[in-house]
């Protein structure tokens, strides 16, 4: 390898790994281990499972790296392996549910209490963050995965679609329904700060 691994693009690193470069592999692990761990943790809600999954993911990915024909898709492929391993764990633990049907027919324009005007110390409090995290945790798995990938981990819709084998409109639909549920939960939580005279309603 002519350039130091730290200066190579992800694509170039993957190409070097295919040629048996251990330094390139270490750099890939350094760059992606947090992302893999965080996604696995968010999906499984289990720290030790996330660690095991991270190890399993890198073993799987690196032992099958020769099957990756386009190096540019490495990150998407990595997220797919991570998601599958996390679902595998949840299935084993019987925690996986594919229920995506949440009745959101009335959720778009209900709860008209405007909590967006609350002060930052309430909106950004540890308590509200916990409420939101718990609400994400209780979303159906297929919806939760999309919300985590998009809003928490910041992936692009196209990458999420490819990772999960969905169409982009399907990703957007799950994301929107998930966000509606979270908005409802936050509306319920923040309602306690509404003006008792009802002027905030």
């Amino acid at each position, binding site marked *: 390898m002519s350039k130091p691994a730290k200066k190579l693009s992800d694509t170039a690193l993957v190409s070097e790994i295919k040629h*048996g470069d*251990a330094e390139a*592999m*270490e750099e890939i*692990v*350094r760059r992606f*281990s*947090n992302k893999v*761990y*965080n996604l696995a*943790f*968010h999906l499984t809600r289990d*720290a030790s499972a*996330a*660690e095991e999954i*991270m*190890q399993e993911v*890198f*073993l799987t990915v*690196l*032992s099958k790296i020769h099957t990756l024909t386009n190096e540019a898709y490495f990150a998407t492929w990595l997220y797919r392996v991570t998601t599958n391993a996390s679902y595998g764990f949840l299935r084993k633990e019987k925690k996986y549910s594919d229920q995506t049907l949440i009745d959101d027919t009335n959720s*778009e*324009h209900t*709860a*008209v*209490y*405007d*909590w*967006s005007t609350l002060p930052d110390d309430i*909106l*950004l409090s540890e308590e*509200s*963050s916990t409420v*939101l*995290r718990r609400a*994400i945790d209780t979303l159906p798995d297929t919806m939760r995965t999309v*919300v985590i990938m998009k*809003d*928490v981990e*910041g992936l692009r*819709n196209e990458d999420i679609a490819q990772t999960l084998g969905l169409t982009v409109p399907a990703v*957007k639909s799950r*994301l*929107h329904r998930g*966000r*509606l549920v*979270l*908005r409802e939960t*936050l*509306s319920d939580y923040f309602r306690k700060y509404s003006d008792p005279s009802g002027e905030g309603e």
Partner: protein
Amino acid sequence: MNCRICSKLLQEYLEDSISEELISELNEHLKECRSCEIFFRTYSLTVRLSQRIEPPCCVSSDKIERLTSLLNERLFPK
């Protein structure tokens, strides 16, 4: 623009994927419709609060070292 179209456009608006013309129409509607305005604000804020959720942790350098050693042993055996 009506409320139904407005709520459908919201997601595209947050993705920055609607035309300037539609954005003006959306803004016009939001000025007139209190219910949509609140929906828009609370939906957008829900997304922003989700984006602020801290990652669970950083993988320690010890763990990364152990993992790379394991990978080296398995994948590039001497």
